[in-house]
């Protein structure tokens, strides 16, 4: 079978990054008593390792293998989960990410960092290796190991040569086995014939499989159930790793007899949910008992007539089983008895030492005592086929991966539809003015329906591009964890409104500015624990991220309860840096806004995290380039709030239509401060061409679009200058644009000029108006630059 694997690499990488995210968030919320959490982390690592191996990213596979081993030890309580260990695992996820990025022709990896982390991983595991040697000797001397922990099963699978013809595929069986536990496959090619006598339908291979799992022999046999007669199957315990029982009750399984009261459903309990919980613990076989089932006429839908016998194969404790039935204790008869351990004597031929690290919780090298330790001790983690299957179910959300290009083309097409619909609506209105009659009425009704449907369709299609902002928020717990550790501050991060949806493109671009703002809050905003205590606050600082919708925008607030902005310090600094004049009278708000000026930083010392002076101005610029705004509110000793306001989507823009000369242009509404009709006296000319507008105690330079765009072919027309001025703002700077006429405001779909043409400075794109004509969208920041260039040019010409 030759499958072109390379086409799946991107999918693998994508999934691996997702896996890493899962690991990371799992580790951050790590709670060693939560079995599912560590299982989730383990599974993510496991699939990364598997995928990496398949695609030949051996470095990734090797590295992840160590991580996986460590995780495995943690979940089976062979390693204590200490904060130090969690940190090590977090660093490991970074390494895996770096390796994956390198595999994806990204930057070179820091080999030193990787090998160092890997060394530490091995160290943690290495101590274990020593104890293996001892244990192995001990257990082989004992000869007969117990069956309550990971068992290394050696399976020798020699299929008959006609196995494939009967429709069986060994690969599937291996897959099924690997769900039971960790699987190592060795292929034997001894009987491979010479090529000339090779028949494609025949199997010449046999396999030696080493399965490390808690499963029973039956579980393995079940996998091979269908091919029993068509192969030689030899299953034996290769080496059993024993672990002293944490709980005397722990065994290979439980027989549960569950006879609920007939009225159990009325108490709101559902037996099927309990069974599902049992499946989480291990492999369970549920056999219903119909003895008490009445005649069909006597059946009542609210009553339960069945009882069940459940055979649970699991290493869980009796308490764990009882916990599931906790709620129905009084409404049922429950009988839980221990199943006898499955004896392995019959099949125990070989005793090859395995690499399974057998340890006890008592000799685990815990460095830091952990108050969660108790929870860890409650029992071994389930590791059965069914729990893996359950997990698969929960992660397979009903979503599909679609190329964004496809979505964009869909959005474009719908945009077209809206324009066509508007045109038809106009035609319909025209017709109804000329004639009347039932047909015209029907036409009108139809057109109205069309309008509503197209609008709904447009909204729906737009929503396809929308993702919950949690995709951005999710990276911040890690950031806060790392940064607060470095700064020695105690920080609690509160997230709210993670489900608020935002356009994917906006989201991709908002991550960095947000990171910066949060670092800023942590570094400058929050005080050290001592300072906080001295100020009478709780030792733990709070940073809150909250996202919500407001009038076609999404607002993200970054709130800290730190010391607030020091207006005096900012003022002094700004004077020092020459950003403002010492004599200027500024309100607190105006002073706060100064932090967004280029080349501003108030940190007393430059830290690794922030304070290099390239900060807030970049944040503001990035956010404005997305058509957003950032503002700041602060109160001394109470904290400060940064508010980021972003458009929901980049595909649509609220625009003000204006006429300049003969053309219609669109100014993004978000950049317009005000439009005014200036009196002649308010406009002052300085040195020829350039003009200033006196506007509320402020002088704003005016840009004449006609000049900048070189639209004016007739010099005579210069005399007829309009006084209509749109005051626009970008990067904290205001300019006035002279326009000839204001039309309406409307939502426009942004089209790129670059696709078929090129970027034009001063324009951010184009759109199609209701009549099908194209209007250009002005880019205020670009216009300002263009204006400066134009003035320079003019000055050169004059000289």
């Amino acid at each position: 079978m030759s499958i072109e694997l390379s086409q799946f690499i991107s999918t693998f990488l994508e999934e691996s990054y997702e896996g890493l995210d899962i690991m990371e968030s799992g580790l951050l919320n790590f709670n060693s008593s939560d079995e599912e959490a560590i299982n989730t982390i383990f599974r993510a690592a496991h699939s990364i390792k598997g995928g990496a191996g398949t695609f030949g990213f051996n470095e990734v596979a090797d590295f992840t293998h160590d991580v996986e081993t460590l995780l495995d030890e943690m979940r089976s309580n062979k390693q204590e989960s200490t904060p130090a260990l969690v940190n090590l695992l977090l660093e490991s996820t970074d390494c895996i990410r770096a390796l994956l990025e390198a595999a994806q022709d990204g930057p070179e990896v820091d080999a030193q960092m990787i090998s160092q982390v890997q060394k530490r991983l091995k160290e943690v595991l290495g101590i274990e290796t020593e104890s293996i040697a001892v244990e192995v000797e001990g257990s082989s001397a004992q000869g007969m190991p117990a069956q309550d922990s990971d068992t290394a099963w050696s399976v020798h699978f020699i299929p008959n040569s006609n196995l494939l013809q009967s429709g069986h595929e060994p690969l599937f069986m291996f897959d099924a086995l690997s769900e039971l536990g960790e699987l190592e496959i060795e292929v034997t090619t001894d009987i491979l014939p010479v090529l000339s006598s090779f028949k494609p339908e025949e199997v010449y291979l046999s396999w030696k499989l080493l399965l490390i799992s808690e499963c029973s022999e039956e579980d393995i046999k079940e996998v091979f159930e269908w091919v029993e007669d068509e192969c030689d199957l030899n299953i034996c315990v290769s080496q059993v790793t024993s672990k002293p029982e944490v709980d005397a009750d722990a065994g290979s399984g439980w027989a549960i007899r569950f006879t609920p009261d007939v009225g159990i459903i009325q108490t709101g309990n559902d037996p099927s949910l309990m069974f599902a919980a049992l499946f989480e613990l291990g492999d369970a076989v549920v056999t219903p008992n119909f003895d008490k089932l009445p005649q069909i006429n006597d059946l009542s839908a609210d009553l339960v007539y069945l009882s069940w016998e459940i055979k649970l194969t699991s290493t869980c404790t009796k308490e764990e089983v009882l916990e599931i039935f906790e709620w129905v204790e009084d409404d049922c008869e429950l009988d839980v008895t221990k199943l006898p351990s499955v004896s392995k004597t019959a099949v125990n031929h070989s005793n090859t030492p395995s690499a399974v690290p057998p340890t006890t919780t008592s000799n685990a090298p815990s460095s830091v005592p952990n108050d969660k330790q108790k929870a860890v001790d409650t029992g071994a983690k389930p590791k059965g086929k069914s729990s893996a299957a359950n997990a698969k179910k929960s992660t397979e959300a009903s979503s599909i991966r679609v190329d964004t290009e496809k979505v964009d083309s869909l959005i474009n097409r719908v945009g077209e539809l809206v324009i066509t619909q508007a045109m038809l609506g106009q035609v319909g209105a025209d017709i109804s003015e000329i004639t009347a009659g039932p047909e015209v009425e029907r036409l009108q009704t139809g057109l109205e329906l069309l309008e509503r449907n197209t609008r709904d369709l447009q909204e729906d299609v737009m929503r396809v591009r929308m993702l919950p902002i949690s995709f951005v928020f999710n990276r911040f717990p890690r950031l806060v964890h790392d940064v607060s550790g470095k700064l020695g501050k105690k920080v609690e991060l509160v997230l709210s409104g993670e489900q608020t949806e935002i356009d994917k493109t906006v989201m991709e671009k908002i991550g960095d500015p947000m990171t910066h703002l949060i670092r800023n809050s942590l570094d400058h905003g929050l005080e050290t624990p001592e300072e906080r205590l001295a100020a009478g606050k709780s030792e733990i600082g709070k940073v809150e991220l909250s996202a919500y919708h407001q009038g076609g925008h999404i607002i993200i607030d970054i709130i800290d309860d730190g010391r607030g902005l020091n207006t005096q310090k900012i003022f002094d600094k700004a004077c020092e840096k020459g950003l403002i004049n010492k004599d200027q009278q500024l309100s607190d708000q105006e002073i706060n806004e100064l932090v967004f000026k280029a080349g501003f930083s108030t940190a007393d010392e430059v830290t690794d995290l922030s304070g290099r002076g390239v900060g807030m101005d970049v944040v503001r610029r990035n956010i404005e380039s997305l058509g957003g705004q950032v503002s700041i509110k602060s109160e001394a000793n109470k904290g400060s709030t940064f508010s980021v306001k972003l458009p929901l989507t980049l595909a649509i823009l609220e625009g003000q239509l204006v006429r300049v000369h003969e053309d219609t242009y669109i100014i993004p509404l978000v950049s317009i401060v005000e439009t005014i009709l200036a009196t002649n006296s308010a406009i002052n000319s300085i040195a020829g061409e350039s003009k200033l507008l006196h506007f509320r105690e402020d002088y704003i330079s005016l840009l004449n679009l006609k000049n900048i765009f070189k639209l004016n072919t007739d010099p005579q027309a210069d005399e007829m200058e309009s006084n209509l001025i749109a005051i626009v703002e970008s990067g904290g700077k205001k300019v006035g644009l002279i326009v000839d006429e204001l039309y309406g405001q409307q939502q426009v779909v942004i089209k790129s000029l670059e696709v078929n043409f090129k970027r034009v400075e001063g324009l951010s794109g184009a759109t199609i108006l209701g009549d099908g004509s194209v209007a250009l969208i002005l880019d205020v920041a670009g216009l300002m630059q263009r204006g400066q260039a134009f003035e320079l040019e003019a000055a050169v010409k004059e000289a």
Partner: protein
Amino acid sequence: MNTVNAQTQGGDLQSNAEGQQYLSFLLDDEEYGIDILRVQELRGWTSVTRVPDMPDYLKGVLNLRGAIIPVVDLRQRFGLPVIKYGPTTVVIVIRVISGVTERVMGIIVDAVAETYTFEIDQIQPAPQIGGGVKTDYITGLMAHGEKMIILMDIDELMNSEELAVEELA
């Protein structure tokens, strides 16, 4: 849009011994030919939206079913006298290969003339014309009876100077 399909077909046909099809158009009484497989559609002249600060020959952009495409007046591009657009004025919408991307553009010509099928060996190489005239975009000359048809490479033509794709940053 199945532009990609058409493109691969174009490649196939080019190597085809049966020859290549050209669409010819008139410009100041001269007949020019372009590869017909690059022609997406023909449109009558409609007013376009002027893009500021562009050379005169770049008339502006128009809405081609949702795509914004630039339109070039070939007369002005070649420095020919400007005439008023009339009923025969046609915008030929062509696909231009610009490096790795394909762009759709319009060219304004006086009128569309005919389609021809030429064998590759019928095409004479473009003569070296001295002086300042750039002839890079002329791929060859083709005699058809009395007429001479000038064959043009639209990629060369449309990617020059102002229309060139900016280097990807």
